[in-house]
C-alpha cells in the first residue's frame, strides 16, 4: 500500500466532517477497502483513511418493539450468532454466516457488506488499468469483454448521468443486500432514512445512494411474518471464501404475498416482480413454483457469456419457493 494519513474518528460528526473533504475514505472492517488499496484500483489514491471503528455505540443489536436495529459496525460473525437476529430474522443470520470466511467474518462489518464495491474484474484490475464507467470513465469494458459473472438484467443507470450509453453491468454481490431488500429494511444514515428499495444504486465508486461524507449508521429490519418466513440460498463455486455468483431470497407474508429477490444478477438487488405476481395469494405447488421460476427470468437480457445464470435463477427460485411452501 502507498502512504496515507490515518485518523481514528471519535464521533460521527468528526468522521463526516473529515469524509466530506476530497481524497478521504472511511474504513470499518477493511475487508473491501484494504484489498482495493493494495490493488491500487482507485483513480485517485486516498490521502486520508478515517477509521470509524473507534466511534462508540455503533455495534449494538437491539429489538425495539417491532424493529430489529443492527448497528453498522456489528461484525458479520456477531450478526450470525446473535440470538435476537436468529429468532426474528433467521435469513440475515444465515447470510451473514455464509459471507467470506469464518475468520474474516470476525472483523468485517455488516455496513461494509451492504456498501461494498462491485467485484467486476475490470473494475478491480491491478493498478487501475481499466478506467471504466464505474470509476468515472467513458465505457463499461465488461459489456463487450468477459462478462461471465455480470448482470443478466441490463445495465445499471448512473444516478447523476444524462449519457445513457454509459452503463455498468457489474453486479451487487453483497450477501445481505437482497435479504434486506426483501424484508423492507430501512437504512439510517447520518443525514436521512432510506428505504431498502432506494438504498442500492449505481454510482461512481459507490454501490449505494449515499452522498459524499454520508455514513450508514443503522439498519432497521421490521420484524414480521416476512422477516421470519424468509429463506436465503446462495450459489457460489466454493463453500467458503467466495462471493455468491447468484443468490435467491424468498419470503412470504401472512396474506400470502410473496417476495422474490435475486442477488448477483443485476447492479442492484433484483426484485422479480413477475415471479411474485405468479404466486401471489396462492399455495405453492411444484407446477406453480416452476412457473414462477420461468417468470423470474422474464425480461432478462443475458450477455455473451452469462446465459448460464438464467438456468440457475430459474432452478433456485423454484426450489426455494417449494421449500418455503413446505415450511
Amino acid at each position, binding site marked *: 500500500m502507498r*502512504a496515507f494519513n490515518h485518523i481514528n474518528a471519535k464521533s460521527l460528526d468528526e468522521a463526516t466532517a473529515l469524509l466530506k473533504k476530497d481524497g478521504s475514505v472511511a474504513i470499518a472492517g477493511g475487508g473491501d477497502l*484494504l484489498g482495493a488499496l493494495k490493488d491500487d484500483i482507485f483513480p485517485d489514491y486516498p490521502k486520508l*483513511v478515517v477509521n470509524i471503528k473507534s466511534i462508540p455505540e455503533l455495534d449494538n443489536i437491539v429489538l425495539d418493539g417491532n424493529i430489529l436495529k443492527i448497528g453498522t459496525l456489528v461484525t458479520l460473525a456477531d450478526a450470525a450468532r446473535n440470538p435476537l437476529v436468529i429468532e426474528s430474522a433467521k435469513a440475515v443470520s444465515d447470510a451473514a454466516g455464509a459471507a467470506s470466511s*469464518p475468520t474474516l467474518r470476525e472483523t468485517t462489518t455488516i455496513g461494509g457488506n451492504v456498501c461494498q464495491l462491485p467485484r467486476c474484474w475490470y473494475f478491480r484490475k491491478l493498478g487501475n488499468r481499466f478506467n471504466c464507467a464505474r470509476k468515472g470513465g467513458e465505457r463499461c469494458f465488461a459489456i463487450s469483454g468477459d462478462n461471465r459473472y455480470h448482470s443478466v438484467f441490463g445495465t445499471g443507470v448512473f444516478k447523476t448521468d444524462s449519457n445513457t450509453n454509459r452503463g455498468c453491468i457489474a453486479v451487487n454481490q453483497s450477501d445481505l443486500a437482497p435479504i434486506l431488500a426483501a424484508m423492507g429494511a430501512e437504512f439510517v444514515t447520518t443525514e436521512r432514512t432510506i428505504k431498502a428499495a432506494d438504498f442500492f444504486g449505481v454510482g461512481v465508486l459507490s454501490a449505494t445512494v449515499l452522498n459524499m461524507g454520508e455514513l450508514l449508521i443503522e439498519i432497521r429490519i421490521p420484524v414480521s411474518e416476512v422477516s421470519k418466513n424468509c429463506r436465503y440460498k446462495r450459489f457460489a463455486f466454493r463453500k467458503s471464501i467466495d462471493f455468491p455468483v447468484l443468490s435467491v431470497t424468498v419470503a412470504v407474508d401472512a396474506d400470502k404475498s410473496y417476495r422474490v429477490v435475486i442477488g448477483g444478477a443485476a447492479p442492484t438487488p433484483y426484485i422479480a416482480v413477475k415471479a411474485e405476481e405468479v404466486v401471489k395469494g396462492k399455495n405453492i405447488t411444484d407446477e406453480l413454483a416452476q412457473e414462477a421460476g420461468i417468470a423470474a427470468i422474464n425480461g432478462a437480457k443475458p450477455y455473451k457469456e452469462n446465459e448460464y445464470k438464467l438456468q440457475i435463477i430459474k432452478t433456485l427460485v423454484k426450489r426455494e419457493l417449494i421449500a418455503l411452501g413446505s415450511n
Partner: protein
Amino acid sequence: MNNTTPPTSLQAASEQAAAKIAAMPVRPKVISCPICGLRFISYDDLNGHYISEHPDSIPPIAVTLNVNGKNCDLIIEPQLTLKQVLQFHLGLTGAKEMCDRGACGSCTVIINSKPALSCNILAAECDGKIIETVEGIALIPKWKPLIDAYCKWDAMQCGYCTPGFLVAAKALLERNPSPTVEEINKALSGNICICGTYPRHAQAITEAVEFMAMEYANAVERS
C-alpha cells in the same frame, strides 16, 4: 558420549518461539526522522518536528501493541498492516503472508480473543489490543497437546499455511472445547492449504481434544 537426549523438533520449535518473543523490542531503539535523519528523545518531539519541518509529509504514528503478553511501543507508518508490523518491527515470522487479500488464512492471529486476519487489519487500528500469534501459542503448556497432535498426524506438507491453521484451531477450541468434525471443518474453512492436508487437521484436533480432556480428568482425580 553426551548423555542428554537431543531436543525433539517440537522442543526446538518452542525454544525458537521463546527466543523470538524475548528478542521483540519493547520500545524503538532510535527515534529518528526518516526524511532528514535527525534524532529525537520522544515521539512527541518527532511529531512536532514533522509539523514544523515537513508539513506536507505523512508523520508516523505511535501505537502500543500487547503481543504475546509483552507491551511493545512502536512508531509505525499508518499504511502498514498488522502482519507487516509483526514481521518487520517485531521479528515475528509465524504469521505468514500468502494472498495478502484476506482469502487464505495464513496470516491468522488472535486479537482480543477473536481470530483475525493480520494482513487485512491496519496496525494503526490495533492500538492497545491484545494480540496472540502462533509463537505465543507454542509457549503455553496448555496447547502443547494440540501442537503434538499436529506433528503426530503430520497435518502439513510444505508447512507454510500451518501457523494459520493452528491459530484458527486454537481460537476454535477456546470457544468450543469439544468440537465435532463438522464444526472443525467449518471453523477452518477460511484457511487454504495448497498441499491438501485438510482431513488431517480434523484428525489432529480431535485427538488433541481427547488428550486434553483426559489430562484434565487426571488432574481433577489427583487433586
